[in-house]
């Protein structure tokens, strides 16, 4: 493993700040380009992982909502996936799926499942019984009840799950370079002793997490005007 000890090759100049591994605004300004592509890799990994994770958990939650006996097994399996250390997951998958995005995504997706499944199900379970009774009593079929009443009312909890999943995935995706998927983690570990480097790459991670969190919150507010009424 060639890891943290490697230095960024072409550190510009011989200013003392850079030589001392300090926090150097000038260096960050001049070298910002090197973080752009990894940043977008990171965005890609996070968004795709959460999207796939959500699609799977959402489907599982809909099935388990009607067939309650499935809840136990699904929670158990996703909880086991959740507890596998991420680095271990990458290495376990490498012989099967090879280096690259696929391996990273499989691991990242598997971490989102438990949170997203539980929140979606909790959202559905919290729909007031009397609203469901009134809906059925007025002649909504179970499918109409699900899409017109139950799911809209579950949106706040579903989005809460997505926010947790998105922010955790931003963090976990810093390890995706172990699977050869790039991302900001690769930059961080490229020169872990150089403060300017670590702060910039790390800072971008935090920014991404905050941006996703706020974005999801705004989406939720837009689609649930009733929750603020």
């Amino acid at each position, binding site marked *: 493993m060639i890891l943290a000890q490697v230095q960024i090759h072409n550190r510009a100049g011989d200013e003392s700040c850079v030589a001392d591994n300090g926090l150097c605004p000038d260096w960050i300004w001049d070298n910002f380009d090197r973080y752009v592509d990894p940043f977008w890799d990171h965005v890609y990994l996070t968004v795709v992982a959460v999207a796939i994770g959500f699609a799977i958990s959402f489907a599982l939650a809909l099935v388990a909502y009607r067939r309650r006996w499935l809840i136990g097994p699904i929670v158990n399996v996703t909880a086991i996936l959740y507890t596998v250390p991420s680095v271990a997951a990458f290495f376990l998958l490498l012989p099967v799926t090879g280096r690259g995005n696929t391996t990273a995504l499989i691991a990242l997706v598997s971490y989102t499942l438990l949170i997203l499944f539980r929140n979606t199900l909790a959202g559905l379970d919290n729909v007031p019984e009397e609203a469901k009774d009134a809906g059925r009593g007025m*002649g909504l079929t179970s499918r109409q009840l699900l899409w017109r009443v139950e799911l809209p009312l579950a949106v706040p909890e579903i989005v809460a799950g997505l926010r947790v999943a998105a922010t955790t995935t931003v963090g976990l995706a810093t390890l995706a370079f172990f699977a050869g998927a790039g991302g900001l983690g690769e930059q961080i570990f490229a020169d872990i002793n150089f403060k300017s480097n670590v702060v910039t790459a790390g800072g971008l991670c935090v920014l991404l997490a905050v941006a996703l969190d706020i974005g999801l919150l705004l989406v939720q507010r837009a689609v649930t005007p009733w929750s603020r*009424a």
Partner: protein
Amino acid sequence: MEAATLEFREATKVYPGSTEPAVDHLSLEVPAGQICVLVGPSGCGKTTAMRMVNRMIEITDGDIRLDGKSVTERRPAELRREIGYAIQQVGLFPHMTVAGNVATVPRLLGWDKRRITARVDELLELVSLDPAETRDRYPSQLSGGQRQRVGVARALAVDPPLMLMDEPFGAIDPINRERLQNEFLRLQQEIRKTVVFVTHDIDEAIKMGDRIAVMQKGGRLAQYATPAELLSNPANAFVEDFVGADRGLKRLSLERVRDVDLWRAPLVRDGEEPPTGEFDLDYPLVVDEAGRPVRWLSGSRAEPLIELDDVLRDALSEMLEQETQYAPVVDKQGAVAGVLSIEIIGATLAQEP
């Protein structure tokens, strides 16, 4: 839509795993346009009986017929769209505005937008809500009484021939409940729906029902009768006990002052000689130019003033409070229409309905 006739024929419900029926061979017919109240203690099967009508609960045996057609032959969702449904907790959809809630069934039936908007406003006015003010509100922004009204409007949305109402005013404070009851009765004068109304409150049953079905434990029908019959001739000890020891007084709340034969008393203008002739009461009553009572000629105050639309129970209560045997009755303009006496009330109670 024309109100429908509803008929329970030996309708029975036995829940799985239970040996006792929840509703036991219930047979009764609700004529079109009447309010039938199902009343009884908790666990008597009244809600189950109601919910069998729109197949929220499936019947085990027997039949329920709507305009002669068995509900079991209909697809549940379609059947339910033709039956208004209002429940105690209202069950408004929190994520929809008032307009969206009221429009639920019209949307299911695919009405066009303009028709829905017009209908929503019409319904909100019908239940005494200002459409402009309430239309775009969410349920959480309404008071309990307003929510209940929206619930009724929603149930009436497609002008269903039958309404099911499960303790619709049960969660409302007494003052607003009374108001909503009166409003609904007034509304019913207009819309003339067939209504199945479930309550555990015998006073509400007497007030709201054209006919009352008293149910007892085990889902059996104890008596099915008009309120007056029920109060004067309870079918058995259970009904007698359930309607309460004050059933005589309750009967008095069924009759209005205008429905009894009032006494005539001599009326005099101030300073004039009392008229001569045959009167039911020998105490002359002094009136002003408009015929409004001023005082008894003897000098005692002409109180309380009873109105023709008062129910006998309220009139009696006021007379007892004033410790008087006689009270002048006035019409809408305030002119004397006659005299009510404790004796008249007593005679009314003695009559069989």
